């Protein structure tokens, strides 16, 4: 028998046993009161169970150790002006450290040598705060350990926005032993932002190292979920792993597990049937989907803002020149100058140590009749027919040229060649096939 308890604030159905005939009249008043009490008790039990479930789930995804306090027991605080500039240029502004120029390789670095080395395991949470940190830069945390004083360890951090960022250093394998120095490094986001236009001034406000706590772990989780994630070459393959820092479990997993478990528990506690559970799961899934979609739209907007910052308001010809690989674009321009004096359709072969450089330089060199170094199989060096070609070697010392013999060697192959151009990372040879 199904009885609807209109007195319940939840307006829920519950299945109760049909009362026996004799007891019905005498226990009438009790029958009216008892289910209401029972219902309140169920609702209360459900509330407790759900609070426990979600607390446990949040603790699990945030990797909070059992028995951790809510607030950190110890905090080691450094204001921005405690750090000194190692690379780039900066100026103290109140207690902040304003960074107004980058150094070599478009990089800025600030660090502080700790008065007393600290135990890494005791301080697993980093809290950091910046002002006006630009989307064009990637942020890294650097540290030095007492056992490896000559090595600097680096880990990419989620970029900090206007709010403080938190990072769980226990996810970093190198964060152990005694720490003697900490700092931050900033450089243009690789393969996304042209290095020469990446820098904008910003300030380091403060950094803190915390002992383990719920607040620190939840902060690290929140930062991981909400931080700006720049586009990466990986983005077309996987969203999540495309961000270059160690990750926490995603809200996708939390919502899927949490909502399913909550509704299964609710259906059991409230004695609901399979149909109720099915409808509730569908509604929860729709709500979860919308929540994730709003989060994704926020992330997408964040990514798009960088695109607007770099390219909006410019013509296509201007935008086409703003490529992240500035050095390769410059190299391609130099090759084109040489090709302007060569016959149309001249074969151009591109070689480099990195596959990215080979393919990217080939793309920038179009419309030249260009090919990757893979065309040069050992058989070409052994006399297989080939037309004369220009070989563009970019940043690859494995190609060695013997000027006296006019022979260019790579791996076990040797080609008859003449050096046409040699400056910096770029060397250009005219090759004619197998070396005599």
């Amino acid at each position, binding site marked *: 028998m199904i009885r609807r308890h209109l007195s319940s604030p939840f307006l829920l159905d519950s299945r109760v046993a049909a009362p026996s005939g004799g007891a019905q009249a005498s226990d009438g008043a009790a029958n009216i009161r008892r289910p209401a009490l029972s219902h309140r008790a169920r609702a209360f039990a459900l509330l407790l169970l759900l609070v426990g479930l979600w607390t446990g789930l949040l603790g699990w995804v945030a990797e909070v150790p059992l028995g951790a306090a809510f607030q950190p027991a110890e905090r080691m605080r450094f204001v921005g002006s405690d750090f000194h500039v190692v690379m780039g240029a900066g100026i103290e502004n109140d207690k902040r450290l304003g960074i107004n120029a980058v150094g070599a390789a478009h990089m800025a670095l600030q660090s502080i040598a700790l008065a007393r080395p600290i135990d890494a395991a005791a301080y697993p949470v980093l809290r950091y705060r910046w002002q006006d940190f630009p989307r064009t830069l990637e942020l890294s945390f650097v540290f030095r350990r007492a056992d490896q004083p000559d090595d600097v360890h680096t880990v990419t951090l989620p970029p900090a926005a206007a709010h403080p960022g938190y990072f769980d250093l226990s996810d970093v394998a190198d964060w152990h032993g005694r720490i003697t120095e900490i700092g931050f490094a900033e450089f243009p986001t690789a393969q996304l932002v042209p290095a020469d236009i990446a820098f904008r001034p910003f300030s380091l406000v403060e950094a803190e190292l915390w002992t383990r706590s719920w607040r620190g772990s939840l902060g690290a989780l929140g930062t991981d979920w909400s931080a700006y994630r720049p586009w990466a070459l990986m983005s077309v393959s996987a*969203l999540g792993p495309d961000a270059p820092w160690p990750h926490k479990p995603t809200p996708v997993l939390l919502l899927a597990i949490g909502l399913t478990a909550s509704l299964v528990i609710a259906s059991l506690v409230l004695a609901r049937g399979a149909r109720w559970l099915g409808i509730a799961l569908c509604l929860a899934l729709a709500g979860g989907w919308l929540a994730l979609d709003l989060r*994704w739209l926020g992330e997408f907007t964040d990514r798009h803002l960088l695109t607007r910052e770099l390219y909006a308001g410019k013509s*296509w010809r201007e935008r086409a020149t703003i490529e992240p690989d500035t050095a390769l674009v410059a190299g391609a321009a130099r090759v084109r100058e040489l090709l302007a004096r060569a016959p149309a359709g001249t074969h151009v072969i591109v070689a480099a140590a990195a596959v990215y450089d080979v393919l*990217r330089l080939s793309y920038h060199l179009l419309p030249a009749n260009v090919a990757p170094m893979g065309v040069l199989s050992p058989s070409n060096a052994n006399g297989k027919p080939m037309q004369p070609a220009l070989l563009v070697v970019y940043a690859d010392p494995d190609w060695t040229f013997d000027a006296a013999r006019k022979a260019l060697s790579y791996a076990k192959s040797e080609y008859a060649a003449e050096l046409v151009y040699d400056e910096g990372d770029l060397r250009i040879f005219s090759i004619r096939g197998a070396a005599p």
Partner: protein
Amino acid sequence: MSFTYVIAWLTPLLLGSGIVALLTGRPRTFAEYAATLGCGFVLGMLLCGLAMAPLGRLEVDRIVPMVAAILIPVGLGAWAWVLLRAAPNVATPPQRTHLHPLLWALLALLALHAWLMFDEILLRPMYPWDAWAAWLLKPKAWMLGGHVDRFVGFDEWLADASGKLRTAQTWSYPETLGRVAIWFSSAWGEWNAGVVGAIWFALWLALLAGCYGQLRTLRLQRDRALVATYALGSLPLINVHVALAGYADLWIATLLAFACLAWMRALETGERGHAALAVLFALMLPLVKLEGSIWLVILGGAMIYARMPPRFRRIALALAPLVGGGVVVAYLLRFPLVAPALDRIGLTADTEVLMTHAPAVIGAAAEGLFAQYNWHLFWFAVALTLALRFGELRASPALRVLGLFLLLGCGFLFALFVLTPAGKWAESYTAVNRLSLQIVPAMLAFAALLWREPSVAVVATPAPRMAEAAPTGP
């Protein structure tokens, strides 16, 4: 924007929609127009690209004027035939009901997705790796070089003295997408990443329109079809493939979805035009990307299975595991022909290697599907739909064969990653989600169709072919 550029957009729309209308009948409702224009535009784009292939070393300036002069009359002819042959409109006027505010909110969210993708496409130079290294390298070379040069293998290129042959790391990849890109680019007059990326945005719109229209014509209620369309349009990895345009996976996904939906209509109505359209979309698959051949084989196999008389189906069902098991045994025993053929696709009989890598590969694949940001809660929704609507699946022979195809497709992806060196791409997340993307729109359409309310007319009088198929469905 020039007249030629407008013609470059109108030609595929006219040609493709004309062919779709010719095969499936004159559209009369909003949903039918959405299906005709969505499916037609994708078909038309690919046909425009393919129409260039026989013309040889064409000057890029002449591509659209020359090809459109042939294709536009074909499209107009198809539409004229459809409009003149169509029966007078006897349909009852549709009942106009207002959209629920929540559905308006979903449409507003979709519009926000669309704006972000479109603006990203217009502004950013070509970004993702395979866009500039593989799929759009050829059209850029053609556009800047002024001619549609032939791409050849390395040795032929090295020995060529004419300077008119080109090569690339990906010289043997199908050229259809490159030809679609040069179609629009040449009409624009210069190489512009925004112009090329806009094709992917149009593909996304066509995918949504085509899926919505086909789902509606397959009797899914309007509100549910809208929810399914929003779900498809909001999937993050699909958004990324549009915003960072240049990969071929979304094309395969669209072709598979359209082929499956047309096939569903053919199965449920018994009309040959829909079957022809499904076959047409399926045949396009290998012309877009190499793995399209495998999808064609799987989809073709499922289509043939659906056409078999019940007795042959029973035989096929009995033989399938025997053949599959036999192939595995033949491979493990290194039988001639079988073992070398499977070696060529990278299958490994080294069970120790398989057992070592399989857990990591399966874990990475599961993470990509269920725990990363790629798919919202899509795969959970599919599982929940199957659990809640299994009765509808059992009751619909057409959905059962579509489910069989999807199951075989998932099996193919599983085998690809677990039994071949492609597993390393799964472990590094570089391929597992992109290959899953290819099946997602078809899977979403399948799940959406499970939410149809049973139609009294259809339940009472099923189409003859389906009545025949019902007792022995998978």
